[in-house]
């Protein structure tokens, strides 16, 4: 398994999971941690697995690293099946959630460990350690014991250790979750920088949607052992294809509407009010009729003219947030709807709860959901 292994027919995928299923245990207490998951992660990509606790993120990482074996399906690395390889023969490194730094070695010893195990010469190991320490900006701590490091420093050492052997893929399992908010923000930037400088594929696990949105090239949203949607952060945010995804990421409004028969390309939905708007469709095939749609609060505003008003309802509550204000509506059909508007200097106090108002929705803001 050479790190520069030949390109295969699957193109530029650095890692690929093909119909991977992982079942833990057996009999009555068996757990399906991954259910027929397929995903391709490209070279140089910052790829994030996002999902609630227990959805199988760690399991997928451990399958790639080789700590677990798939019950069914294959894991490919650069197009080659690595299923039979033990962890120590896979050109993949992991940044463990608790860092797992060797307490009996120095910072330098930890960082050089992988290269030493690859039987590199002492000179090579030393040089690599120096380079890595420079990369994570910790040159002066080379001979420290790892127990004498702060959380952020340990994090950097863990990163340097995993990057030192120049793996094809770096796996990061919630690496920032043990850090406080300020340090986490710093490390997010640091991680992005490291990924840019090294050009290594990062597979990053988190259950923090904001972290996922800010850092990733692409995100896979998972739920109960399945991947629901894969896409760029913008895609996922603006065009969630699934109720769960829409709900999990950001705040959103769910509405009932009728998908109209498609006429020359563009899809349109009709709201109970009679208003008809263009809408984006999910990847999955969907037939005309009753559908659920989502509209992000910031993609709507309070209508100034009757013509703009797609929906109408009673203003129930106004919540001021500094940069913007949330208007909570009770629609005429009983549903809740939130409008978020930027606060300009002259806006704000025109609306009082109890008012009957119209709501306008931006063009292209309506997303039809699967099912």
């Amino acid at each position, binding site marked *: 398994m050479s790190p520069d292994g030949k390109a295969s027919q699957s193109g530029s995928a650095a890692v690929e999971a093909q119909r991977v299923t992982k079942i833990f245990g057996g009999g009555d207490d068996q757990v399906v941690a991954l259910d027929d998951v397929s995903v391709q992660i490209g070279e140089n990509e910052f790829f994030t697995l996002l999902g609630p606790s227990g959805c199988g993120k760690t399991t997928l990482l451990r399958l790639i*690293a*080789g*700590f677990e074996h798939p019950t069914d399906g294959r894991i490919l690395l650069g197009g080659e099946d690595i299923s039979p390889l*033990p*962890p*120590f*023969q896979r050109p*993949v*490194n*992991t940044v*463990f959630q*608790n860092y*797992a*730094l*060797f*307490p*009996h070695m120095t910072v330098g010893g930890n960082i050089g*460990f*992988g290269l030493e*195990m*690859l039987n590199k010469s002492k000179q090579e190991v030393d040089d690599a350690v120096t380079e890595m320490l420079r990369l994570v900006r910790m040159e002066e701590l080379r001979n420290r014991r790892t127990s004498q490091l702060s959380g952020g420093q340990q994090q950097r050492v863990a990163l340097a*250790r*995993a990057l030192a*052997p120049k793996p094809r893929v770096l796996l990061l399992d919630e690496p920032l979750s043990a850090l406080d908010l300020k340090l986490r923000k710093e490390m997010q930037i640091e991680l992005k920088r490291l990924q840019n400088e090294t050009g290594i594929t990062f597979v990053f696990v988190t259950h923090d949607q904001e972290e996922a949105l800010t850092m990733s090239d692409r995100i896979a949203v998972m739920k109960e052992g399945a991947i629901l949607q894969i896409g760029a952060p913008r895609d996922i945010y603006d065009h969630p294809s699934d109720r769960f995804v829409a709900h999990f990421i950001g705040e959103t409004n769910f509405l009932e509407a009728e998908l109209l028969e498609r006429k020359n390309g563009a899809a349109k939905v009709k709201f109970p009010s009679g208003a008809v708007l263009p809408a984006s469709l999910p990847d999955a095939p969907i037939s005309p009729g009753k559908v659920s749609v989502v509209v992000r609060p910031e993609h709507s505003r309070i209508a100034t003219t009757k013509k703009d008003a797609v929906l109408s309802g009673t203003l129930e509550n106004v919540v001021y947030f500094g940069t913007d204000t949330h208007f909570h509506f009770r629609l005429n059909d009983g549903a809740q709807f939130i409008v978020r508007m930027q606060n300009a200097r002259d806006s704000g106090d025109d609306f009082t709860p109890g008012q009957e108002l119209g709501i306008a929705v931006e063009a292209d803001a309506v997303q039809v959901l699967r099912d």
Partner: protein
Amino acid sequence: MADAVTQVDTPVRGASSPSPKGRGFDVKRLPGFATVAWMCLLVLYAPMLVLVLFSVNDNRSVTIWTKFSWRWYEEVINNEGIQHATVLSLKVAVVAMVVATAVATMAALATTRTRAYRGLPVVYGIINQPLMVPEIVTAVATLSFFALIKQATGVTGLGYLILAHTVFCIPFAYMPIRARLEDMDLTLEQASADLYATPWRTFRRVTFPLLLPGIFAGAMLAFVISLDDVVISLLVAGPGESTLPIYIIGQLRRGVTPEMNAVSTIFLAVSILLVTFFFVLARARK
């Protein structure tokens, strides 16, 4: 209900008459317990102090103090019986310690940090068996067994005694090693495998160095336990195989002499030294 309300309205008693500084109500204190604790300490150490004191008394009497002298220690050092017994005790203890520690380390590696597997409770049971049976029972059972083998094969020798010691040393060596392994972070070994170390190199470079304090502690306990054993040695040892405790118990039958104080003091010192070492190792864990 009404009572509770009035009580809230009345000023808090503690506030109206503040207790003297640092003498507030101590939830942890129970009256008299400290006295008992100090008494226990006195009871535990007084006899040993007496023993040590009279080992440096220049007098045959083990009751009346005359003056300080090392003479009993000189006699102990020149006593051939004691020399013999000491060498034998050390021989047995060292071999039993090495074998028991090696075997216990292996067993500990296979009985920790895995999912429970079929047979695991049985393995635990077997390893801890020597702790659950009274010493005298083990002693007579081992004696009977060895007698049978000696009769069948005609082979005799120190091996039997060493083997008997090894058996009861195993669970003592096993305890601290297992404790250490269970404290150890499993992800460290995974990290090592992730960084291209083969299972053997992971063991040598990560598991073993981290386990070493536990192994030392286990060896220490095994050594002390073997050195201290009386009952099993007494019954199992063949003729001419007197370990130091057997020699001492034999001498005591003939009467209490100051030499016994001296040799006991040396023995005590060795035990305390080893236990101190063990304590330091156990604390190095943290």
